[in-house]
């Protein structure tokens, strides 16, 4: 009776047993890559909005301060999505008959809100507070990227917990002088040195306890 398995089967089985470790490890690594990819995090995916509002034009080219629209960023957890009224402060005067702005005018007339699509969407069990971050010298650009260069806003960071913790554990890598928080173009010459000084000066005790964000 001839052998059922060929001699090479020995090698194949040895290699595949040995290789299974790598296969599983590779699979897990693959999963973690997928999990961090833009496909899952939706980073770098521009969202279509009811009105194609360009931050690049308003914040970049026109130089409107972030706080003109995001009024409560310095005092509240929420930065505030501007009311239609804020848009109309200017657009009562300019581009008054632009068809792209019709949803804004409709909202102003009817009092119904404009339905924006949320770009930076943290899970419901995460409680983020804008005010403490801007007050302690975390710039808008650190988390949101160069919004002043985006036509349609997309999410720049992964918003994963490891991304939050990177700064919470090493705030000196990111903090900047308070007066530059809203200056998206600013960057430090020597972040390490400046960061360490600012952490001291601003008395930054970034917390990494679970209840800081989860409650």
């Amino acid at each position, binding site marked *: 009776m001839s052998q059922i398995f060929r001699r090479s089967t020995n090698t194949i089985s040895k290699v595949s047993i040995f290789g299974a470790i790598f296969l599983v490890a590779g699979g897990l690594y693959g*999963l973690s890559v*997928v*999990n961090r990819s833009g*496909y*899952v995090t*939706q980073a770098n995916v521009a969202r279509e909005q009811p009105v194609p509002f360009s931050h690049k034009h308003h914040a970049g080219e026109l130089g409107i301060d972030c706080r003109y629209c995001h*009024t*409560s960023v310095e*005092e*509240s*957890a*929420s*930065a*505030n*999505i*501007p*009311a*239609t*009224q*804020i848009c109309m402060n200017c657009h009562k005067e300019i581009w008054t008959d632009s068809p792209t702005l019709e949803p804004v005018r409709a*909202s*102003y007339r*009817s*009092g*119904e*809100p*404009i*339905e*924006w*699509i*949320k770009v930076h*969407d943290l*899970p*419901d*069990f995460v*409680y983020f*507070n804008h*005010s*403490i971050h801007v*007050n*302690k010298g975390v710039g808008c650009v650190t988390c949101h990227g160069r919004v002043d260069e985006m036509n349609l806003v997309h999410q720049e960071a992964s918003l994963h917990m490891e991304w939050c913790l990177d700064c919470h554990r090493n705030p000196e890598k990111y903090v900047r002088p308070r007066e530059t928080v809203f200056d998206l173009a600013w960057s430090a010459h020597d972040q390490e040195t400046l960061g360490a000084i600012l952490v001291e000066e601003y*008395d930054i*005790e970034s*917390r990494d*306890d*679970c*209840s*800081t964000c*989860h*409650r």
Partner: protein
Amino acid sequence: MFYLPPVIEPMQRSDANQSSEVNFDTLRAKLRAGGAEFWRSLENLADTAEFRRFVEAEFPSEAPRLLSAPDRRHFLKLMGASIALAGAAGCTRQPEEKLYPYAEQPEQIVAGKPLFYATAMPLSGVSTGLVVESHMGRPTKIEGNKQHPGSLGATDVFAQASILGLYDPDRSSTVRNAGAIRPWSAFVDWIEPRLQELDALGGKGLRILTGRVTSPTLGAQMKGLLEKLPNARWHQYEAISRDQARLASRLAFGREFDTRYHFENADVVLSLDGDFLSEGAGAVRYARDFASRRSADGERPMNRLYVVEPSPTNTGAMADHRLPVGGAEVEEVALAIAAELGLEARAPVGVEDHLPWIRAVARDLSKHQGSCVVVAGERQSAATQLLAHALNEKLGNVGSTVEYTEPVAVEPSLDVGSLQDLSDAMDRGEVKMLVILGANPVFDAPFDLEFEERMKRVPTRVHLGLHLDETAVLCQWHIPEAHFLEAWGDGRAFDGTASISQPLIAPLYDGKSALEMVALLGGNLEPNGYEILRDYWRQHLPQPFEDAWRRAIHDGVVAGTAFPPAVPNWSATLASVLPPRAADAAGIEVVFRSDPSVYDGRFANSGWLQELPRPLTRLTWENAIWVSPLDAEDLGVSSGDVLRVELEGRSVELPAWIVPGQAQGVVTLHLGYGRRRGGYVQDGTGVDVYPIRSSEGMWHAGGASLTRTGAVATLACTQDHHSMEGRDLVRVANVGDGHAHAGGHADDSHAEEEGGHGGGHPDTSLFPDVEYDGYAWGMTIDLNSCTGCNACVIACQSENNIPVVGKDQVAAGREMHWIRVDRYFSGDLDTPEIHHQPVPCMHCERAPCELVCPVNATVHSDEGLNDMVYNRCVGTRYCSNNCPYKVRRFNFFLYNDEEADIVKMAANPDVTIRSRGVMEKCTYCVQRISRTRIEAKKDGRRIRDGEIVTACQSVCPTEAIRFGDVNDPASQVSLAKASARNYSLLHELGTKPRTTYLSAMRNPNPEIEGV
């Protein structure tokens, strides 16, 4: 995926013959022998097999079983599946969400920041000042108003639960005519010609029925209306009636006065069936005043409380000496005390057994002339109240501990008398149009008025109410009422202070307020509550009006409107005005009580209140008939046996509950259950006992008989849930005994006796001590002040989005309250001492729960909080098995999502809504800590002591709960922890809890001990 049944059935008895597992003789013998110092229930005391089974299941609610016994293959399959699923779950994408900004942003609203507005809640006419938290125009949480004399920052359970009342999905939402949905304009069109007819007749045939009114504006409106329509009549009725107090005042002083107490000045308090700590006008304030003198550490001596009452109350539980006697017998005890103090009245009857007690009390009172107070419960007879007035006069208390004021009610009339007049008029056919504003007489009127039958004969009936209730469905027109959080209004506190209550939200269902309805009756076809209120106050506020008006609304009180003390004179001698003794009736006496959760029935549709374990029985979702252990023994009944109570030929059937401390021969029934119409939540909860309540026996009636029906009911009682197995939990000491065995020093000796858990000193541990260099949060709960009022439980539920689970789930031990109030008895079965102990998470330094969590979902923070991370929790429930305090709660089902959409409006946006399969527990209100910490950091300062107030702490009427930084030796909580009374629960386990207790103190009269 898996159906997980509990291993054991809920605490219940399956057959009636099993009844004598609790053997009273054995119990008494055991107590005499000093067998158990503190016991939670009769089952606990008897140590029945059933109780052991319940406790030994470790966590009956949490002992799940797979459908078949797991074998190895099955186990591996499950594990493999869960690992695969765990990986897959990590890769989900967030669904797309939308943002809805304002079109026009309101000026004060900052997204993400709550606003706080003052308002006031009326209950039976009396207003309590509130401050309501509002998120983007959505009221979410009630707090007390510190400036309001009836609140001082605290509230009761009803005020806390009113937020759920606002979002009650069963609220009436449309105008209805004969059941059909109609617009408001249809009602206006309909009533307009009828109002013209009424005008011509001077209002003849028009009757208006309201609850008790203290609102100055509504009062003025009614007065105006009655001037315009002189033949119309106004009736007021409250089922929780103060009639006897009104009668007593009329007898004594010739007209009505309100009585106010100053417990802060009282060294000795005698309560004659008066539950002043938790019932009636001013209870929240009185609890604060009383507790201010309840400390043995203070400058002034600790007060002493005597309570005479038929069945235990929260006030009775605080008593140093409690005498259980029948409801009618209280009057005799009062007479005997009056006689001892030399007052001429009637000779008391049947108090011989209690004479030593009575004499000792009388001597104590006379030793404290001018600094004692006699309080008569408003459900007591006019004679008892009259005796209390006379005793206070005789003891020189008037002016120091007792004050009289003009009545707070706009038009003092008798509840029953007024309703009787209406009922008689309806019977004679004199009533052509009946307008009922907010009352529900079809449900809560005394049966002998035959209100329902007679009302049906009135040609035109209009009802304004929050629900389509028993009265509403019998009226041709029903108008949805605006909740007090939706409407402009005003009212007076127990001391006369006026409050303007502003709406927190526009009426959800276009409801109308009583102000608007009365204005409509007066011919104003487009009534506007705000304008009506403003017009009234324009004439009653100082100039400049606009400033005073804004100030009054902002503060929630109108300054300087408290009534000054009046000095009434006795119109005759006590003996000449004292009503004669009511005729004796043989048999069992029935005592009626307002319910601590549903009041007179109006709150029956509130899930929070229904699921709240009642203070003394720990029953939920229903009422039971309270029976004394002696009577239970005579009748051979156990808790749960259904009894038929017959009174004057009428009967109700409801399950018995044996209540230690209940007077012999007396059964107690709670009003407000068994609602027939008006809501889904209240369906099938309890039994309506109004059918045996007559206008003569509003509060107690003799001559009843009890029979067993043979049926057995399952009651959802939480008293044996989460048992800590009889370890040394409550500590009580007597004043003068020293604190040695009550306080912290005892911890060590006690632990040594027990040998700790591992044989060494409990503070020894393998784990290194953690240094807390920043804040270290801690809490103390003063058992000496805690009255067991339950306000903390509801406040916590409201603040932390805690779901309601329903009766069946409670019976299975799955109630979700993060703070529970344990109740213990000690001493004799028939006259036990009663103790309350609130138990939230202890936030142990060495938390047993943290060590066993396989996924690190419960971890320690650098401020010493025992954090619970919902998003990590996979629901192994190891933590709650390992928690010696049994404070962890598990979401067995998706409790939160089962609620109606409108209920979600009540949720606190700062706290996660927990899903199924997640453990949860007290967080020390970490969202409030976070909010305060962020504000402090932005200002570049440390958090001040008292800046963080937890929900339970803020609501506590007696300030029993203190919270703060234990690293700061000057903080309130550190000072409390430095007290000799400080002790930790289960210290011998070495968990080092952050929450500690201050032991209770009693101040017994040496003359009575051993009487």
